[in-house]
Each structure stands twice: as structure tokens, then as C-alpha cells.
């Protein structure tokens, strides 16, 4: 097993140390995360895979400054994430959370509206992003005129609009059908290769985690802990067919074995 912490000579972009998160609920405290330490390097694509309820969303919210942490530290680019969110990060959720009453382009421009910047200066970039995702000419459409995959593409465009260095994605393709999901997996890799964002990508699909990640962090639940970190040594660009190769299978098997050992997945024989 490898260490999720990078060697000291390479300063990480995101640095998390001994993070605990306890929710206070009516039935008492709920420990959601315990002793999370991990680094995300600049330009890295980091996948986190774990069973439902293991605290993946919580971890993401802590990094985004949306949830206050119970113990430990989170630093982004050397700056502590306390209350309030870091300056420039993009977020994509499982549900696309597009505003139904706004056109596609106005949805994409929402972040700059919130930041009180001139929309007109960003329209061109919005259109370019749409084009990048194969949605050229969709500016004036409404979300309810789009398919699920197209809507999620728009949500990713919105997250990328202000060119954030860090992109946080919480099971972004979890609600899509398998074919669309494959398509978007491939597209996301392409966009990442072009833009080299730092991406924290959460999923409950082992295959997706390995296909997209430079590294995969495997989490277990009650409370959420890091069980294992795997470096995926498959050259890019990875084609979808790479998932049928023995090398790829070795990675997914390793993760599956970990889940079996933890009793998260039943052993099959």
C-alpha cells in the first residue's frame, strides 16, 4: 500500500491532514470522516472510490469550505480553508442543478454573475466551452430541452467557466445511463488532458475511478477512512477499451479485494 501523502520535496496543491468531521444530528454525533490525510498534486486527477455513505460528499464539501471541519487542517495552495470557500474552484454534482428558467448560456454564466463581473466578457468563453463539449449552438436552449448527458455537460461547462485550478466532482455521472457515462468519461479525460486542471473526482464505480484517475483513493465507511491509495500506471490518453486489458483488470481487482476484505463487497465464488 502506498502513502496518500506526497514526498516532502513536492508541495501539493491541496493538503489535508488528520481531518475529522462529526455531524451533530438529533440522534447524537455522527462521525463521517476520521483521520483523513491526503495530498492532491497540481494538475493531478485524483479519484476517490468508496461505498455509499462513507463520507465522500462530506470530504468534498470540507475541501470546498461548505462544511466546517471538526479537527485537522485543509490547505489549498498553502492557504487554510477555514470558513468560506476558496477563491476559485469549480463544482459539479450528481444532479446537474441547472436553473430551469435560464438558457444554457445564462446557466453557464451564473458564476460570474454571482461574482459581480460583466457577463458580456465571459460569453465568448462560455460558447467555446460548449463547443468543446459538442454543444455548439445550444446557447439559447433551455435545460428541459436537453438530455441528461447534455445537461451534465452544461454543468461541467459552468464549473469550468472561470478557469478554476481545482475542480471538485461529486459522482457527476452517477445518474447517467452506461453509454452516456462512457462517453462523458472519455470526454472528461480529453478536457483534463487539454486543460490540466487539478481534479478531485468522486465515484462509487471502481471502473470509472481507475479509468480516470492518476491515483485512486479507496475509502471505507463508519466512519469514512482512507484504506488504500493506488497509483494507476496506464498511459494517456486512455481509450475506453483499455478497461478490458489485464493491466486495468489488475487495478480493479485490487480495489475489489480491498472492499471484500472490509466486508463492503461479498466474496464471490
Amino acid at each position, binding site marked *: 500500500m502506498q502513502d496518500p501523502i506526497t514526498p516532502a520535496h513536492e508541495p501539493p496543491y491541496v493538503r489535508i491532514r488528520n481531518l475529522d468531521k462529526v455531524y451533530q444530528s438529533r440522534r447524537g454525533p455522527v462521525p463521517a470522516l476520521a483521520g483523513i490525510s491526503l495530498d492532491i498534486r497540481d494538475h493531478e486527477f485524483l479519484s476517490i472510490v468508496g461505498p455509499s455513505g462513507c463520507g465522500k460528499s462530506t470530504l468534498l*464539501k470540507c475541501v*470546498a*469550505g*461548505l462544511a466546517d471541519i471538526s479537527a485537522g487542517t485543509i490547505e489549498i495552495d498553502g492557504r487554510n480553508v477555514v470558513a*468560506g*470557500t476558496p477563491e476559485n*474552484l469549480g*463544482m459539479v*454534482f450528481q*444532479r446537474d*442543478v441547472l*436553473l*430551469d*428558467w435560464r438558457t444554457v448560456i445564462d446557466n453557464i454564466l*451564473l*458564476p460570474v*454573475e*454571482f*461574482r459581480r463581473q460583466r457577463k458580456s466578457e465571459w460569453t465568448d468563453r462560455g460558447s467555446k466551452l460548449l463547443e468543446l463539449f*459538442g*454543444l455548439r449552438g445550444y446557447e439559447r436552449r*433551455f*435545460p*428541459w*430541452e*436537453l*438530455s441528461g448527458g*447534455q445537461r451534465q455537460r452544461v454543468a461541467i461547462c459552468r464549473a469550468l467557466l472561470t478557469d478554476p485550478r481545482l475542480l471538485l466532482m461529486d459522482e457527476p455521472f452517477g445518474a447517467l445511463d452506461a453509454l452516456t457515462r462512457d462517453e462523458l468519461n472519455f470526454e472528461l479525460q480529453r478536457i483534463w488532458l487539454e486543460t490540466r486542471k487539478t481534479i478531485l473526482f468522486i465515484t462509487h464505480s471502481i471502473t470509472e475511478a481507475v479509468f480516470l484517475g492518476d491515483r485512486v483513493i479507496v475509502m471505507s465507511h463508519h466512519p469514512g477512512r482512507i484504506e488504500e491509495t493506488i497509483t494507476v500506471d496506464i498511459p494517456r490518453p486512455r481509450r475506453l477499451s483499455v478497461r478490458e486489458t489485464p493491466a486495468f483488470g489488475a487495478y480493479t481487482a485490487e480495489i475489489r479485494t480491498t472492499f471484500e476484505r472490509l466486508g463492503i463487497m461479498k466474496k464471490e465464488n
Partner: protein
Amino acid sequence: MASRPKAADRPAASSLLATLWARSSRVRTVLTVLVATVIVWELVCRLLALPPILLPAPTLVFVDLMKSPDWILIHTGYTLFATLAGFALAVIIGIALAVGIVYSPLLERTLYTLLVAFNSLPKVALAPLFIIWLGTGMSPKIAIALVIAIFAIVIDMVLGLRSVDPDMLDLAKTCNASPLQTLMKIRFPNALPSLFAGMKVAISLALVGAIVGEFVAADRGLGYVILSAQGLFDTTRMFSGLVVLGVLGTILFFLIDLAERLMLPWHVSRRSEAAPAPRHTP
């Protein structure tokens, strides 16, 4: 990945009539039922030879309406004004109260609790009180319409403002949106479908309020027409008033429905085409 618009959205000129015909199916059903009712009503009156003082035939009512259309129209105007004024005030004040309730825990605990408790009171019982407070002119009618209508607005608007996807609010936070921006750009538009549902109930209730006000003390308005006709045992005239009232209520309801269709295409496109279930608590 070009997705073509559905044929029903952009009809060719030739198929426009066919489209209109297909789309008006609900209206046609309503009209058919109405016409059938009127025919049955007429037949019952004639076949049973009912005296008009009990139940006047539709033709008699029609003749009565045509005798003095100007006079009826003027009284309709009074009632309409009281209804619309009460309704408009209910919408404006109701939205303001709902925003206050959603944003202030103090208002939520005090005002909202009070409103919900107050809602179970039959508001028409307040009418005599308003006459004492505001006299017998237009203002007490507006006030009663307002008081009856505002609950539907506040309660539905609070519901709408609260039912925001938490992820959406998180997204706004990551963009450093101010509370005002979150309200104006997310919560408020998100609450519009709910507001319209409330307004559809409120417009009918405002009409009830105006009529009740006119019943208690008035010398004009449709409520006055009905009540004074009762004093003369002029049942036909009473029915004239009722028919106009029914037409007025229906038109007002469908005007709001139309406004909703124009303003919230995203919502209407998703909503089932089933007729809304009536819910009334005047």
C-alpha cells in the same frame, strides 16, 4: 447530437389548425359539459314547468341579463375592482411576509405560527368587523378579499422558497453569492411555480371575499345585485348575478393559468396536463 424540436412545438402553418384542435381538448371538454348542463337545465325547467321563482330557465336568465347589460356591467366592475385590488395586495404583502418568514427564524416562530393558527378561522366571519373599521365603501371589500386570499399566497410561497436543491445553494456559496443574490437569482424564481399555485387559489378566494363584503354592507357590486334581488324575490335576477360571477371567476382563474404558461414554460412543460384538483377553504 442534434436534437430536433418536437413537431408539436413548431407546427407548420398547414397543421396549425390541427395543433390548436389537439391542444384545446381540455377547453373543448369543459365547453361541452357546460353546454350540456345548460340544455338539461332548460329542459328540466320546461318539462316540469317550474315557476321561475324557484328555478328560472337559462333563457329567462339570458333575457334578464340582456335587459340591462350596462347596469350589470357596472356592478361587475365594482366587484372586479375589489377582487383585483385585494388579490394584488395579497400577492405583494404575501410575498414580502414569506421572504421574511424564510429568512428570519424569529418571524418564522412568531408570524408563521400565528398565520397558520389564524388560517383555521373562517375569515368570512371577520367581514362585519371590517365594516366597522373601514366603513361601507370599497376599502372593507378590498380588505376582506386581501385577508381571505393572503394565506394561500404566504403558505405556498414559503414552501416554494424553501424547496431549493441544497446543492444549488452550495453552488451559490462556492461562487461567493450574497444572500440577496441567492434570493433573487435562485430562491425566488424557484418559488414561482409554487407562487402561481397559490395565486390560482387566492384569486378565487379574493372573489369570495369581495362578495362577502358586499353581502354584509353595500349598495353596489354583484353581491349587492344578488342580495337586493333576493329582497324582491327576483330569483331570475339572482341567477343573473350568479352566472356573471361564475364567468368572472373562471376568466380570472384562466388568466392566471395563462400568465403561468407564458412566464414558466419550463414548469408547465413538466407538469402533468391533468386538471388541478380544486382546494378551497374560504
